């Protein structure tokens, strides 16, 4: 039995191939965009919006509040990135209740892609906010000797981010598959429900950690500004995260 949806090839032309990961990713994207269309096709700023609009507003407000709680800043610049991570992973994991569906997040390629996006977004947001030199300078704090450790920390937390999501989702799929072969009744359903919960938790964790990594760069800038005004302080190291 194949657990990696990357290996399920649907269409191939030489090096180019369309596997189940891409197909289910497009399915998830189409579903999200469909809901978006439903929510925003009759957008109303009246006090009685439609149900879909209310649902989406509630979701967006929830994400904004979480970003604001973590970053202590205006959530709107990070909403598109962090919110999309959450929505994509959440919907990708929720659809596991559909038989035959393979979550794209069960593929290390997808989680690696998301982790790479976070890996790139953190310095981009940092550079955008504080400039290239100031951002690069935080890797040398508290001293130049910490440069390789900071870089290793940056890379390792990205890998941890990818592997954590992949491991959780893939393990759920594997455990359900194994249980179906052993005890075909009841237990797989319970574990499927557990998998739904795990999937939502993973979506939340991934999005929150992404925001934590982004805000760590902004916090470092704030601390730098404070230390230049008051007294020198050792630079904050971004949390590596983990589960």
């Amino acid at each position, binding site marked *: 039995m194949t657990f990696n949806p990357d290996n399920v090839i649907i269409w191939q032309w030489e090096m180019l191939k369309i596997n189940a990961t*891409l197909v289910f990713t497009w399915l998830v994207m189409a579903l999200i*965009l469909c809901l978006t269309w439903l929510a925003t096709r009759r957008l109303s700023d009246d*006090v009685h919006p439609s149900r879909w609009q209310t649902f*989406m507003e509630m979701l967006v*407000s929830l994400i904004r509040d979480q970003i604001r709680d973590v970053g202590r800043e205006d959530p709107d610049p990070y909403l598109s990135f962090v919110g999309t991570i959450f929505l994509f992973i959440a919907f990708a994991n929720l659809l596991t209740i559909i038989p035959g569906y393979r979550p794209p997040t069960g593929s290390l390629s997808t989680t690696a*892609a998301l982790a790479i996006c976070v890996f790139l977004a953190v310095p981009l947001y940092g550079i955008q906010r504080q400039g290239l030199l100031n951002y690069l300078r935080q890797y040398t704090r508290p001293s130049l000797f910490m440069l390789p450790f900071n870089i290793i920390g940056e890379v390792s937390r990205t890998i941890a981010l990818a592997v954590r999501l992949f491991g959780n989702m893939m393990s759920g799929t594997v455990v359900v598959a194994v249980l179906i072969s052993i005890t075909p009744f009841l237990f797989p359903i319970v574990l499927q429900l557990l998998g739904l919960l795990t999937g939502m938790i993973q979506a939340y964790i991934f999005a929150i950690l992404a925001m934590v990594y982004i805000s760590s760069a902004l916090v470092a800038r704030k601390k730098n500004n404070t230390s230049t005004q008051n007294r020198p302080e050792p630079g904050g190291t971004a949390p590596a995260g983990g589960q």
Partner: protein
Amino acid sequence: MQVDWITTFAQIINFLVLVYLLKRFLYRPIIAAMNRREERVALRLEEAAQQSALARQQSDEYREKTHTFEQQRNQLIEQAKREAEAQRSQLMDELRSEIATIRSRWHEEVKREQQAFLDQARKIVGEQVCLVARQALGQLADSELENQMLSVFLRKLAEVSAQDKAKLVQTATDKGLMVESRFTLSAAMREKITAIIHEQIDAALAVHFEQAPELLCGITLKGPGFKLEWNIESYLTHIDEQLSSQLAITTSSK
């Protein structure tokens, strides 16, 4: 487990496309709609607060006006009561005064009418009594009434006490005595009276005679501090008192 880098790259593209699409079609419109709604709600709340403040202000004004009107109404009612009371007491006083005036006028009129009636009655009765007595005496005794009255007068003169006589002599020595009568005394009667006075009292006293129309029927002897008479006036006065008391009883019973 291995990473398919082509799939990874494609997923990065997919993710970035999704980020763009959601930002374009979800986050931006939804946030804009929420902001507009918040602004509208804030605007409505502000309008509601303004209207509430306005309503509160108007309510205070109306309450103040009502209070003022109530005070003015009470003051006007009090003033009207006072004026009505004053007017009532004034009217009552005027009415009492008018009633008292009418009553006193009526009393005076009644008294006047009573007096006139009594006077008239006394006159008529006296005249009638005199007339009746005269006719009766003339018919019965065959003598004139005057003679009978004179007889009675002379008998009363004889009954005067000695003490009174002595006092009369002392006081009437200078001016003498006056004999008044309703009717004209004849010369014989005058002589007879003078002789009796001289005999009974004092021979030196001067006696004057005079006719007095106010005497209804009778004869009077007057001296300083002394008076002796027989007159039908006393009887008529008694009748007058009886009539007056009877009239008073009749008036009070009405």
